[in-house]
């Protein structure tokens, strides 16, 4: 019986590193990150398949359409490496199986990943960085530029290894346990709090309406501020959110809307 071919730690690391650097390099409307996926599998393929035919089949297998949030998506590469290893050792895993697995994981991991990383983690870190910048200047961007990539690089590599070790079942178990949703809940609490704080500093809408009766001038904005400071700014956010979520308008549409409404407001001397 033939010896079991095990992927060396070095190969796994090179595979991950290739993906980590070059995941977006040749993105296109047709294949998305397909070439990059294949690229990241080269070290694995080279180590596992000495036979030319097998190698060609492997290259073709991984050059198909692929797309995922690239930073946490590395978990799929780990799983795929494990599947390839089993296949190279004789397990009955055909092209179709491997592709099905990749496609099955792609969707949910894109959703989760986009929500958690650019949708939650990055805004939180940036909001903190803005806060620091406000008081301590350039320390803010430095903080972000150190913390974010370090944390993500470690996480991404960890997830690759996790995918390789846990295999497909392990990943699916976690995704179905609901824990990820609760984690997203908790992170969204943090994110919303911080976004609210940020909005209070960076969104500014105030009215210039005044009533003058005799020598007394009443400024509407003054009254609004006494009732709830920043009322109009908050209102603007709610309107935007409403247009995007309930009315399903595109961001560009909403931007046009804001330009027009403020224009009318300025002309009518409301703002």
């Amino acid at each position, binding site marked *: 019986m033939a010896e079991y071919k095990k992927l060396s730690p070095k190969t796994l690391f090179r595979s991950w590193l290739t993906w980590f650097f070059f995941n977006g390099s040749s993105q296109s409307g047709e294949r998305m990150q397909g070439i990059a996926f294949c690229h990241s599998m080269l070290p694995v393929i080279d180590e596992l398949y000495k036979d030319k035919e097998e190698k060609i089949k492997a290259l073709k297998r991984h050059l198909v359409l692929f797309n995922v949030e690239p930073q946490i998506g590395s978990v799929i590469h780990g799983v795929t490496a494990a599947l390839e290893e089993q296949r190279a050792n004789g397990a009955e895993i055909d092209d179709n199986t491997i592709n099905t697995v990749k496609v099955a994981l792609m969707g949910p991991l894109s959703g989760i990943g986009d929500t958690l990383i650019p*949708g939650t983690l990055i805004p939180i870190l940036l909001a903190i960085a803005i806060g620091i910048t406000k008081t301590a200047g350039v320390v803010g961007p430095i903080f972000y530029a150190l913390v974010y990539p370090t944390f993500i690089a470690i996480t991404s590599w960890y997830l690759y290894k996790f995918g390789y070790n846990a295999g497909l079942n392990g990943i699916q178990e976690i995704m179905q346990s609901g824990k990820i949703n609760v984690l997203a809940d908790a992170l969204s609490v943090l994110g919303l709090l911080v976004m609210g704080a940020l909005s209070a500093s960076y969104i500014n809408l105030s009215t210039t309406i005044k009533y003058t009766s005799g020598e007394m001038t009443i400024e509407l904005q003054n009254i609004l501020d006494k009732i709830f*400071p920043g009322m109009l700014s908050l209102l603007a956010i709610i309107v935007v959110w409403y247009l995007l979520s309930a009315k399903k308008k595109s961001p560009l549409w909403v931007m046009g809307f804001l330009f027009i409404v403020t224009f009318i407001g300025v002309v009518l001397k409301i703002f």
Partner: protein
Amino acid sequence: MIIKITIIALLAYLGAIGAPWILGTTGGFYTLGRPLVAAALVGLILGDMQTALEVGMLIQAMYIGIITPGAVMPFDVDYIGYLTPALIILSKTDPNIAPTLAVPVGLIGVTIWNLIWVINVYFAHRADKYAVEGNGSGIRAMNLGAQIVNFAMRFIPAFLILYFGRGFLQELQKMIPPIIIHYLTVVGGVLPALGIGMLLNMIIKDKSYFGIFVIGFMLVKYLNLPIVAIAIMGAVLAVFWFKFQGGVSYNG
């Protein structure tokens, strides 16, 4: 000045979506490509850190929640991040118009990205050929090769916008009547609501969670707490939120 503009245009490439050189997407688009980081670099290069950071904070807040699902990009934060503060500083314009200036800049960036996205199909087809030959290096070359396109389409426009834009903006500014300046300031004040709104649209599934956003808003308005303090308190809250929810998601 040409050298400085060249460096900025180069950074605008390095921080663009897809540019792999600085830790891939993580160090590139998601770090160098963030307006706050970009503005700081511009400030360093042009020697006016204060204005740069002022602009940086403003436009970062505005585009803080940008996500690009499936490579669909609503505004190109990378171009915005480098070109807006650079144009403002070079033409000595009022930083308050930054949010408005960011709009056309961001749309130019998006157009470029959409072009790249189509052009890159070419590399995929050549890669297919190499696969049939079992030529791994060829595939690698295709993945890296796409960067030639990316570089050309990012660096050149950025350089040109900066080179011609600063003079143009200076001229333009002299001609603008005060009411327009006021209008642009008002617009600049509301535009960040778009970024925040997009984020809310994404994060909030159960409307009651909006209340937490309002609390954050009020903590600043009423108690004048800095964001760092609010973030730390929020983190503590989030930990117990996670702990006490016992696996039941309300907003997920």
